[in-house]
C-alpha cells in the first residue's frame, strides 16, 4: 500500500480491532491484579 | 397415566379460570394487526405483500407475553418443587404444560389470524398455508418459550426473549416462505415438512433441556 494515501476504511478496521484486542488483554489483567491484591490487604491487616 | 390426565385437567382448569392468560395475547394481536395499516400504509397492494411476514412476526411477539406463564405460577406457589420431588416423569409433565399453554395462548391467535383477510387485505388463497404453517410452527416457538421461561424463572430479565427470538428464526423464515410460495403458485409442502421436521427433532431436546433448567432453581 502507498504510504502517502490514507484509506479510511482500512484504518478504521485496524484501529477498532486493535482497540478490542487491547481491551481483551487489559480487562482480565486488571481483574487478576485486583483479586490477588485483595488477599494481600487482608493478610496485612 | 392417570396422574398425567389429572395434571392435564388441572392445567386446563387453571388456564380457563385465569382469563388474562388467553385474552392478553389476543388483544395484543388485534391491536398490532390494526396498527400496521395505520403506521405503514393503507394501500392494499403494499399491505398484501407485507401481510405474511407481519402476521408471523406478530404471532411470534405475542407468544412473548405468554411464555412466562408456563412455569412462573407453579414456581411461585411451590408446586414445581413438589413435582421435582415426586418420582413422576418430569418431561411428560412439562410437555403437558407446554401443550395447554399452546392451546390457550396460540390457538386463539391462529383462529384470529383469519381476520387479516379484511384488516390487511390478505388474499384468501393464502389462508390455507397461513393456518397450516402457524399450526405447525407455533408449537416449536412454545417449546423455545418453555426453555426460556424455565431458565429465567422468577426474574424479569431480557434474557428470556433474547434467547427465544434468535432460536425462532428458522420457524419464522420457513413459515412466511410457505405463505409466499403458495401465493406465487409454488408448492409449499416442502416448507411444511421442514417445519414438522424441526418440531419433531427439537421436541425431545428442548423438553430435556427445560427439565434440566427447572431443576437448577431448586439446588
Amino acid at each position, binding site marked *: 500500500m502507498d504510504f502517502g494515501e490514507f484509506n479510511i476504511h*482500512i484504518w478504521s478496521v485496524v484501529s477498532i480491532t486493535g482497540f478490542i484486542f487491547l481491551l*481483551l488483554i487489559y480487562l*482480565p489483567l486488571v481483574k487478576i491484579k485486583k483479586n490477588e491484591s485483595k488477599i494481600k490487604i487482608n493478610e496485612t491487616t | 397415566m392417570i396422574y398425567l390426565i389429572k395434571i392435564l385437567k388441572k392445567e386446563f382448569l387453571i388456564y380457563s379460570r385465569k382469563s388474562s392468560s388467553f385474552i392478553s395475547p389476543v388483544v395484543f394481536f388485534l391491536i398490532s394487526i390494526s396498527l400496521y395499516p395505520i403506521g405503514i400504509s393503507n394501500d392494499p397492494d403494499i399491505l398484501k405483500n407485507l401481510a405474511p411476514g407481519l402476521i408471523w412476526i406478530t404471532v411470534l411477539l405475542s407468544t412473548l407475553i405468554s411464555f412466562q406463564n408456563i412455569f412462573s405460577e407453579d414456581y411461585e406457589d411451590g408446586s414445581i418443587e413438589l413435582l421435582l420431588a415426586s418420582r413422576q416423569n418430569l418431561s411428560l409433565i412439562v410437555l403437558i404444560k407446554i401443550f395447554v399453554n399452546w392451546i390457550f395462548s396460540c390457538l386463539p391467535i391462529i383462529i384470529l389470524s383469519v381476520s387479516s383477510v379484511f384488516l390487511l387485505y390478505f388474499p384468501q388463497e393464502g389462508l390455507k398455508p397461513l393456518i397450516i404453517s402457524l399450526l405447525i410452527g407455533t408449537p416449536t416457538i412454545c417449546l423455545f418459550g418453555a426453555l426460556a421461561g424455565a*431458565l*429465567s424463572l422468577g426474574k424479569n430479565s431480557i434474557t428470556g426473549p433474547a434467547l427465544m427470538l434468535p*432460536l425462532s*428464526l428458522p420457524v419464522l*423464515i420457513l413459515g412466511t416462505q410457505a405463505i409466499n410460495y403458495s401465493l406465487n403458485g409454488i408448492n409449499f409442502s416442502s416448507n411444511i415438512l421442514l417445519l414438522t421436521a424441526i418440531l419433531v427433532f427439537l421436541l425431545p431436546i428442548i423438553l430435556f433441556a427445560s427439565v434440566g433448567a427447572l431443576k437448577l*432453581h431448586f439446588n
Partner: protein
Amino acid sequence: MFQALKNFYHKLGSFPWFYKISGKVIPIVGFFSILLIVISSIWGLFFSPTDAVQGDVYRIIYFHVPAVSVSQVIYYSMSVAAAVFLIWRMKMAGVYIKSLAPIGAAFTFIGLLSGAIWGQPTWGTWWVWDARLTSTLVLFLFYLAIIGMQSTFASRKSADTAVSIITLVGVVNLPIVKKSVDWWNTLHQPASISISGESSISSEMLIPLLLSILGVYLFVFFTGLLFMRAEISSREQNKEWFKKLSSNN
C-alpha cells in the same frame, strides 16, 4: 499413553494446577501471538500486492477472515465444554464457557463490523441480509444471550449449568438457522453478492492471511487463558491455595 492423557485430563480440572501452569504459559503465548499479528498486519497492510479488482480495500481481509473463522470455532469449542460440564460436572468447563463467551462475542463483533466497513466501498452497501451475515448475526445474539444468562443465577453452579444448556441448544439450532436462511435467501434476492471470492487468491496474499489467522488463533488461546485465570482468581478467592500463592508472590 491413555493413562497419561487421563492424568492430564484430571490435572486440567484442578484450579491450582491450572493457575500455576497458565502463569508460565501466558507470557510465551502472548508474545508469539502479538508478534505474529504485528508481522502479518504489517505484511498485509504494506507489502502484499494490491488487488486488481478491489484495490487497497481488500486488505481488510487480514482482519475480517481470521475474526469470523475464530468466532465460529470458539462457539463449537464452547459447546464441547458445555457437554463436558453437563456430563462430568467438570468445574473447569464452566470456567471455560464463561471466559470464552466475551472473547467470542468480541470476535463476532469485529467480523460483523469489518465486514460492513469492507462491504461499503466494494458492494456499495453496509449490510446485506445474506445467509452468512445473518447467521453470523445470530451467532452474535447467542453469545449475548450466554453472557446475559451468567448474571441471572445466584449460585455459580446453576449459572454454569444454565449457560451450558443454552450453548448446547444453540449449537443444535445454528445449522438449522444457517440452512433456513440459505433457503430464504434464494427467494428474496439473486446470489449476485457472494463473499466466497477467495478461491483464486495468490500466494503473496495467502501467506500473510494464513499468518494472521494463526496469530488470531494464538491470540484467542492467550486471552482465553487470561480470562480463565481472572475467573478462577475471583471464584477461588477464599480458598487456601490461592491465599498461599498470592502471598508468596
